[in-house]
């Protein structure tokens, strides 16, 4: 979610990466009732799987992330979205762990989603793609792990929507998660967050180029709508103080306001740039599907409305991390997860990192996050025989 200046030429660069066809014999049973199969899951791996197959870390990306945790990104040429966290000698040390990240179901970087061809019609899925949930995403990832022959993950982790997936992973497959690290997330999407997502979707659907989701066949792209969705969302990833510190009321390449609607202020110019860069790498329909999946997420609802029931009897070791200035998934939401875990006396650590960088802090250089997570992982690794502290 950082600035990604790219050229149109970059979008034509050939996408590289791994992918696998899944669900040909046993289709994926989606929450909406549809059986999906076969489908494609695009993924990347970093590091080496050990002989015991016990050092796998599944990293789950957020709304607009993808499988390219470490760069260069094949479309933008930029560093990966979690380059700070994953790599040799990093917190998720690829000299030690085998890191896997798959493009989410409904995504637009090679995994089956509205942009891909519907085998039944030979046309892009568009809105014929079934509506998916966080649980569906996790089921698809579990099928990938089966394909890779990995029974248990040493760790499942992610921030934001990735954190929701980590929670769902433990709820759905507790015995497959030795540790779970949900970061800056929530066990359910709040009314405010559903409202914010709806603004983004309406911006896309109000774009005349959206064409009921059939824009690909018409050779157009609802860029304006998608860019506005991104701009609105991007504000929620920052904090008031970070915006103030970065931009204040500074003007963009001018000494006076122009009494017009050009981007007079630096903050306007910055947001326009964010919107523009985003449309060059992301699909508008994917944005609709994935935000919907996040809206539908309410883990407790599957367990009689009691979140603690989702974790009853679970032996997974948790490390929950929140950020003081995150108002999208505030500490209170993260603490609700911790309380539910405490209610079943689960093994949980919880750290609130002091940062003024807002929700996006989980993607950025936050030494407190790295250090605490490193300690947590080392402790867990020592306990499960993955090396000493």
């Amino acid at each position, binding site marked *: 979610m950082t600035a990604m200046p790219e050229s149109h030429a970059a979008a034509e660069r050939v996408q590289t990466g791994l992918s696998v066809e899944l669900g040909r014999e046993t289709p994926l049973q989606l929450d909406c009732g549809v059986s999906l199969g076969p489908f494609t899951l695009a993924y990347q791996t970093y590091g080496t799987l050990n002989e015991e197959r016990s050092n796998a870390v599944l990293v789950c990306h957020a709304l607009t992330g993808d499988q390219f945790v470490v760069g260069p990104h094949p479309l933008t040429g930029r560093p990966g979205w979690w380059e700070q966290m994953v790599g040799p000698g990093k917190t998720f040390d690829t000299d030690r762990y085998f890191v896997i990240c798959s493009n989410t179901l409904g995504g637009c970087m090679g995994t089956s989603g509205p942009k891909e061809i519907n085998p039944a019609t030979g046309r892009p899925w568009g809105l014929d793609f079934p509506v998916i949930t966080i649980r569906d995403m996790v089921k698809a990832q579990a099928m990938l792990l089966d394909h890779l022959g990995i029974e248990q993950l040493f760790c499942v982790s992610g921030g934001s929507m990735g954190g929701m997936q980590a929670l769902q992973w433990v709820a759905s497959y507790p015995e497959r998660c030795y540790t779970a690290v949900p970061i800056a997330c929530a066990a359910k999407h709040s009314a405010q967050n559903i409202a914010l997502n709806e603004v983004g979707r309406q911006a896309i659907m109000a774009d005349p180029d959206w064409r009921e989701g059939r824009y690909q066949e018409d050779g157009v792209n609802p860029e304006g709508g998608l860019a506005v969705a991104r701009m609105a969302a991007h504000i929620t990833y920052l904090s008031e103080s970070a915006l103030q510190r970065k931009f204040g009321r500074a003007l963009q390449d001018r000494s006076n306001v122009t009494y017009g609607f050009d981007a007079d202020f630096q903050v306007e110019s910055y947001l326009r740039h964010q919107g523009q860069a985003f449309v060059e790498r992301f699909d508008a329909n994917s944005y609709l599907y994935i935000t919907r999946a996040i809206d539908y997420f309410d883990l407790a609802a599957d367990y009689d409305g009691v979140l603690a029931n989702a974790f009853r009897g679970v032996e997974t*070791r948790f*490390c*929950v991390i929140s950020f003081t200035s995150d108002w999208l998934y505030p500490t209170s939401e993260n603490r609700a997860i*911790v*309380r539910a875990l*405490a*209610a*079943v*006396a689960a*093994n*949980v*650590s*919880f*750290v*609130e990192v*002091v940062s003024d960088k807002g929700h996006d802090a989980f993607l950025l250089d936050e030494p*407190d996050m790295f*250090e*605490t997570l*490193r*300690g*947590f992982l*080392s*402790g*867990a690794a*020592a306990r499960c025989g993955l090396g000493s*502290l």
Partner: protein
Amino acid sequence: MNAGPQRRDMRQSARPDHRLIAELVEPGSRLLDIGCGDGALLELLAREKNVDGRGIEISQEGVNASVRRGLSVIQGDAETDLADYPDAAFDYVVLSQTLPAIRDPKGVLLELLRIGRSAIVSIPNFGHWRNRLHLLTRGRMPARAGSGELWYETPVIRPCTIKDFVMLCRELDIGIERRTQVDSRGRVRHFSGTGRFANLFGEQAVFLLSSERR
């Protein structure tokens, strides 16, 4: 002089009350340390007693330090967050030097014995003879040992003596399985009843509590 919880300043591996607590704990048990500071006790118990330990700590720096050591610790407040835990979730719940900083000691003591089968409570003894002498001769509140913190600076809001604590346990029908005091030279002695001698010479005391009164 020992008028307060010595949490951060004395969190060394050799803290005498930590040694005593470690002796009380059965190997391999499940334990919750409330007010665990930087996790020194939990680390000692994990290393020497193979304890499955958890911690609650109110200060974020303490939590971060604990998690960095590979311990399972959450940021939280003993006065509000113990309610989240189910009954008998732990073999032991430890409250080490934290009681005098708590607003509702009665409520917290009862919570300890709800969520733990046993509780281990260590307290600094305000009834130590040096404190008594200080108050008698100077007419001023003794500063917290080692810290030099004055009455308006200390986190201690409810200083108590060994006798006070024993009387409170009687009132709450809490059984005391073992009572031990540590004097200023680090010598450890068991005592009984309200511990007249202990209440004069003990700098701190460690109690093993159970919900069944003896």
